[in-house]
C-alpha cells in the first residue's frame, strides 16, 4: 500500500499514466484548454519528464469565442515552458459564421467536436491526453482512463476495454485513437488543493474582479468584446459592473460567472471547498439535450 498523501498518490498515478503513453503510443498530444484542469495537466507533464521537456505537442482547439485573458495566458505559458503549442480553429465554421448565439448546441459540435476531430486527423495523433475527471458528470464517471475511439472518433460506452491494475493496453489499429485521462480520479477539490500546494499560475478569470457583465438566461455572462453587444443588441445600460469570477472556463458567452470577493488563491480554495453546487452547473452546454447530453456528445466525439 502506498504511504503517500492523498495528493501525492494522485500525482504519482497521473505521472505514471503520462509516461506510459509517451513510452508506448506512437504520436501523442496533450489537449490544452487553458483552464485549471489543463494547468494541472501541463504541470504534471512537465514533472513527468523532467529534466526533459514533454516529448509531445500541446493542442488548443480555439472556438474563437474564448475569453481574451485565456488566450493571453496560453501564449505566456507556452513561451515560459518552451512548449510546442498548436492552435486549431475550424475554418469552415468561421467562414459560415458559426457562433454560440444563433447555432445553439450545434455551435459546440462544429467549433469544438468537429474542430477537435479535424485537428486529430490532420496531425494523425494516436493518443490525446485530456483533463476529464470522473467526478464532473455521470457518464464521465464510467469512462476508463484509456478510452478508445474508432476511426470515426466515436466512443462506444457499452464496449469499453477492461482496464486492470495499471497495466494499460495501448494497442490500436490504424485510424483508431485513444483518449487518455490521467486525472480521472481527481476531484475538483483535489485540483484546487494541488494548485495551491504547487503554487501554480492560473488564468486571472478565476480571481474575483470587477468585470462588465449581463444577465442572460439566468447566467451572469461577461461582456468580453463587442461581438456579444452586437449579437444581443445590448445598450450601455444593460451592462452591469460586478465583482465576479469563474469556476470553469470555456467560451465566454456560454460560461456563467458568479459574484464573489475571492481574489486570492486561498480565498478561491476556501470558497470552492464550501461549494454546494457541483461545477458544471455553470457550464450551460451540459443541460442542452437533457440528462444524457454529455454522453451523447461523447459518442459523437466530444472530448
Amino acid at each position, binding site marked *: 500500500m502506498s504511504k503517500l498523501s*492523498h495528493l501525492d498518490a494522485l500525482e504519482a498515478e497521473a505521472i505514471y499514466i503520462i*509516461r506510459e503513453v509517451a513510452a508506448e503510443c506512437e504520436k501523442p498530444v496533450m489537449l490544452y484548454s487553458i483552464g485549471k484542469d489543463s494547468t494541472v495537466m501541463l504541470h504534471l507533464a512537465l514533472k513527468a519528464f523532467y529534466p526533459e521537456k514533454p516529448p509531445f505537442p500541446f493542442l488548443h482547439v480555439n472556438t474563437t469565442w474564448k475569453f481574451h485573458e485565456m488566450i493571453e495566458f496560453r501564449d505566456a505559458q507556452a513561451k515560459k515552458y518552451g512548449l510546442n503549442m498548436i492552435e486549431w480553429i475550424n475554418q469552415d465554421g468561421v467562414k459560415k459564421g458559426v457562433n454560440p448565439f444563433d447555432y445553439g448546441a450545434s455551435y459546440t459540435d462544429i467549433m469544438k467536436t468537429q474542430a477537435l476531430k479535424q485537428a486529430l486527423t490532420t496531425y494523425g495523433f494516436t493518443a490525446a491526453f485530456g483533463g476529464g475527471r470522473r467526478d464532473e458528470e455521470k457518464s464521465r464517471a464510467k469512462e476508463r482512463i484509456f478510452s478508445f475511439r474508432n476511426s470515426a472518433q466515436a466512443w462506444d460506452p457499452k464496449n469499453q476495454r477492461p482496464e486492470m491494475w495499471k497495466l494499460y493496453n495501448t494497442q490500436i489499429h490504424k485510424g483508431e485513437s485513444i483518449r487518455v485521462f490521467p486525472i480521472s480520479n481527481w476531484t475538483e477539490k483535489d485540483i484546487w488543493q494541488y494548485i495551491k500546494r504547487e503554487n501554480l499560475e492560473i488564468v486571472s478569470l478565476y480571481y474575483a474582479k470587477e468585470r462588465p457583465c449581463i444577465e442572460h438566461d439566468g447566467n451572469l455572462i461577461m461582456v468580453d468584446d463587442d461581438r456579444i453587444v452586437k449579437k444581443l443588441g445590448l445598450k450601455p445600460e444593460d451592462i452591469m459592473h460586478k465583482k465576479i469570477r469563474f469556476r470553469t472556463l470555456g467560451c465566454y458567452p456560454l460560461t456563467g460567472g458568479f459574484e464573489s470577493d475571492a481574489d486570492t488563491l486561498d480565498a478561491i480554495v476556501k470558497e470552492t471547498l464550501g461549494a454546494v453546487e457541483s461545477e458544471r452547473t455553470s457550464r450551460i452546454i451540459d443541460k442542452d439535450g437533457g440528462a444524457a447530453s454529455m454522453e451523447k456528445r461523447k459518442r459523437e466525439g466530444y472530448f
Partner: protein
Amino acid sequence: MSGLLKFITCGSVDDGKSTLIGHLLYDAKLLYADQEDALKLDSKVGSRGGDIDYSLLLDGLQAEREQGITIDVAYRYFTTDRRSFICADTPGHEEYTRNMACGASFADLAIILIDATKGVLVQTRRHARICALMGIRYFVFAVNKMDLADYSEDTFDKIKKQIEELKKELSLYSAVIIPVSATEGDNITKRSSNMDWYKGPVLQDYLETVDIDEATENEKGFYMPVQRVCRPSHEFRGFQGQIEHGTVKIGDEVRSLPSGEKAHVKGIIVADHSEESAVEGQPVTIQLDREVDVSRGCVIESGTDLKAADSFETEVLWMDDDSLTLGKNFLVKLGTKLIPGLITEIKYKIDINTGEHQSTDTLKKNEIAVVTIAVTEPVIASEFSKYRTMGELILIDRITNMTSACGVITKLEDGTKKRHYAADRAARSALNWQSPLVVEFRPFEDGTSVDEIEEAEFKLTSSGRHTYFYHPQSGEDYANVVKNLFEAGLIVLIVLDEDQKENDSLASNEHCKTWSVLRDSDKDVTSDQISAKIFQSTYSTVTLDKNNWII
C-alpha cells in the same frame, strides 16, 4: 484520518448495490446540491415513481437508465469527516463480469451485497472469487433487504453460515458480515432499531475506521520497473518509473534486471526536484554512476530476490467474447514489459459454484482457470503473493487488440528453457492427425478375442491411424509402457489377461477407456466394429500451426 479508501461494491443484479451507495452519499449529505436536484427530477420518471431512487445517482449511462441495470463501473468520490473514499460501483450481471473485475483490480476493500431473501448465489461466489483473485484482502458482506426478511436474526444467521464457508473456501483474509436495508437505511449510516440482535459495526463506521495498511506486506527490498529512459542531452541519462516497493538512496548499489549489471545511484529526481532518497509509490528518475544496459521493461532493484522467467503458472480470468484456443498468440503485459507469448496449457478451470477443478481445452468469457503462460524471452516476474506488481499481467489479442484476460502469477516454472523446445503429446498427436487413446481389452470377459483386436489394429493403420498393439507378459510393468506410448501420441490397444489385476495408474488415465465402456452395447463385437469405434474416438482436435506452438 485513516487515509484514502478505495472500495468496490458488487453482488448479483438487483441486490441493490447502487441503492446502497446512493443512500450512503445521501444520508451523509455528501451530494452537491444540483446532483440532489437531478436525483429528485430523475426519480419522477424512475422506477420508484416519486420516492427517491438512490440508484439513479450511480447508473450514469443512458442504456443503464433505460434498462435499470448497471453495465459498467461508476467511480464516485466522497469525503466524510474521517476519511476520503473512492467507490467503484460495479455491474451485477454475469455478462458484465469483466467490468466488475476492473473495479476489483482498483480496490482495497470489497462490499459484496447479498439479498437476504435469496442467500449466497453463484454470482456472489463469482464476485468474491474475482475480488480475491485481483488481490483484495478486506471484505464486507452486506446482507441486504433485511426489511423484506422481517429483520429476522434466523435468516441472517443462515446466510452468515454460508458466507463463513465461502470465506474459508477462498481463504479470504478478513470478512465482516452486516445485516442492512439499503432502501430503508438500516445499519448503513445509523444503527438500526429494527435489528437489536445485531451487535457488530454499522457499515459507514466500519469503512471509516478499517485499517487496510494493517495487512503488512511481505515484499522486501527496493524495486522499480523502468517506464522510459530520459535523455534530454548527452550529459544526462536517467531511468524513469514508479518505486513499487522499498526505498532508494544516493550511493546505494542497485542491479538492473534481467542483465544483473550493478551500479551505484548517482542522482534521484522525485517528479521535478533532486532528492537524497525516494520511497515506495513515488515517481522518480534515477541516474546511475556508470553505463548499464537499462531500457523500458527492465527492473532496477536492490535486496529483492526477483528473477527472470519465461514461463509461469497463472490464475486467469478470461474476459474476451471470443473463447481461448490453445496456441493462439498474445501480447503479454507484465510490469512495463510488453512481450509476445501464449497459453501453452490449461491446467484446469475452476467451477465458480463448487470450487471444483475441471479439465478443459478452451476457456469461455468469465471463466477462471489456472494456465501456463510462456513468453518469447525471459522477463522479470514473480509470484503475485511475493511481489505484487511483478505478478500481475494481462493478455492482449494481437488481432483485435482486446484485453482478453488478466491474471496473477501463482508459480514461476523451472526448466522452462528446455521445455519450450521439446515437443509434447499434443504436438506429436497433432502431427499424426489424431488424438491419442488407450483402449484396454480383457478378452476373457468383454467378448473380444486377441485375433479380432490385432485385425482391428491393422484396419486402423490402413486408415492412417498410428497405433500400437500391446499384449504384455505377466509381471511386466505395462502401466508405465502404456503411459509412454500415450505420451508419444499413439493409439494403444492393450490386451490384458485374467491374472493381470486392474492397475490403478492405468485406470486413472482419463484417456484410457476399457472396451466394455467404449463399445456400443447393441452391436456385435467384430474387428470392424472395434476399428470403427476407435477411429471415431480419435479424431484430431488440435490444428497445428507451427508458428504458434513453438515459440
